[in-house]
């Protein structure tokens, strides 16, 4: 399973992109990400959660690809839901430090 994180927008307009293969992660980290995906009910989320543009906030595109399915979700700071937030937080920490 591969997870991609793309952050764009923000006051600075700087892109922050990151992707990770769960197979390449230590077991406990892969399990955490799997759990966060389930908690977010990721594969059942609509493709676009953003209902209106909010000046300067971050926009995120999360793509998850497995052998059998692929799903992409677009979300922003103000349209974020509580079940999805922990997944985004985890991916952000990986993206900003460049650690898979």
């Amino acid at each position: 399973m591969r997870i991609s994180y793309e952050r764009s927008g923000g006051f600075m307009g700087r892109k922050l992109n990151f992707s990770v293969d769960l197979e390449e992660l230590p077991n406990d980290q892969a399990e955490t990400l799997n759990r966060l995906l389930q908690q977010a009910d990721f594969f059942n989320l609509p493709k676009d959660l953003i209902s209106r543009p909010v000046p300067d906030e971050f926009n995120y595109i999360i793509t998850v690809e497995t052998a059998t399915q692929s799903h992409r979700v677009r979300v922003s700071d103000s349209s974020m839901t509580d079940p999805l937030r922990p997944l985004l937080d985890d991916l952000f920490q990986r993206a900003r430090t460049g650690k898979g």
Partner: protein
Amino acid sequence: MFTQRMVYCILPPYLLREIAQRGSPAQRASAQRAIIAAEQVRSQRRTIQANSAPMEAVSAAGKQRYVYDAKQSSVLPGILVRKEGAPAVSDPAVNEAYDGSGTTYDLYYAIYGRNSLDNNGLKLDSSVHYQKGYDNAFWDGQQMVYGDGDEDLPAPERLFNRFTIAIDVIGHELTHGVTQFAANLDYSGQPGALNESISDVFGSLVKQYQLKQTAGQADWLIGQGLFTSNVKGVALRSMKAPGTAYDDPVLGKDPQPGNMKDYVNTVEDNGGVHINSGIPNHAFYVTSINIGGYAWDKAGLIWYKTLTEKLGNQSNFQNAADLTYAAAGELFGTNSLEQNAVKAGWAEVGIIIGGQTQEGCFKATLRKLGLSGLLKG
């Protein structure tokens, strides 16, 4: 919009989850949408409640600032930590949000006669300490929201300081509120970049007003002080020289163009709203330098009149050029020094007053070729 979402909340969440798991595909999709809408409403409800009740009571009462502490969470607005007239607290982010929104209010009121964002005394709500490691600030349609930068990383890895540290960032966010109540420029493509530029223009003017600097003395930087010493750069943007604010191994190079020939076509960042804003930014800078003196007095007044009386939600750069030129004529006379300065400002970025827009040229060409149908759908 919120009313429409609230309707979804009539079904209890457990029932929606049941449907989302066991219903037909259409039912599942519908239930899933309702669950998400309810979750979004729950996280927004506190903001709405906090904003709606006192709003009427304080209208026309002058400056009304409220600063909240989000305590590193995403829940807005958070806990009230300082309100209008209360003394400074020990938290610098709180005081910066308070003082910065005060100076922004003062500029709009003293120079342009505007009573707050809506010109009707709207209270100014700010939340500081939003999330952890949030290197950003935004206007959510109702309030300002500020992150602390990279406060959670070890010092040698930090790139950003707290976002309240730069008063022009505070002026920038509040100006998004003014724009929302005035031209309400779409936050996409050229109208979006114009929206961004107007926030940079008045954000910079707030800083110049506070420092009592003339156009010649001002640094014309946006977000000076936001970078830590680990970053090779002076600020996030430069209105004087777009594209030169930073050039850093981690952050890359400032991508802003300062001329239409370098306009960046992209789908990211709502169509490059934070990139192409460099073009109208530089036009304002050149106009201000050509006029001289305090930029808020004349160039700022021309832009303010254009924003509040002339621009519409679909206005593009060419419209902004033509309408600032018209506003300068109305304020200072046809062929006045000020009107010619506006013309020269836009010429410097490759926009000729009365010229055809890029879209106009494109559409005209298609029409000539008999391909206008391509524009539909």
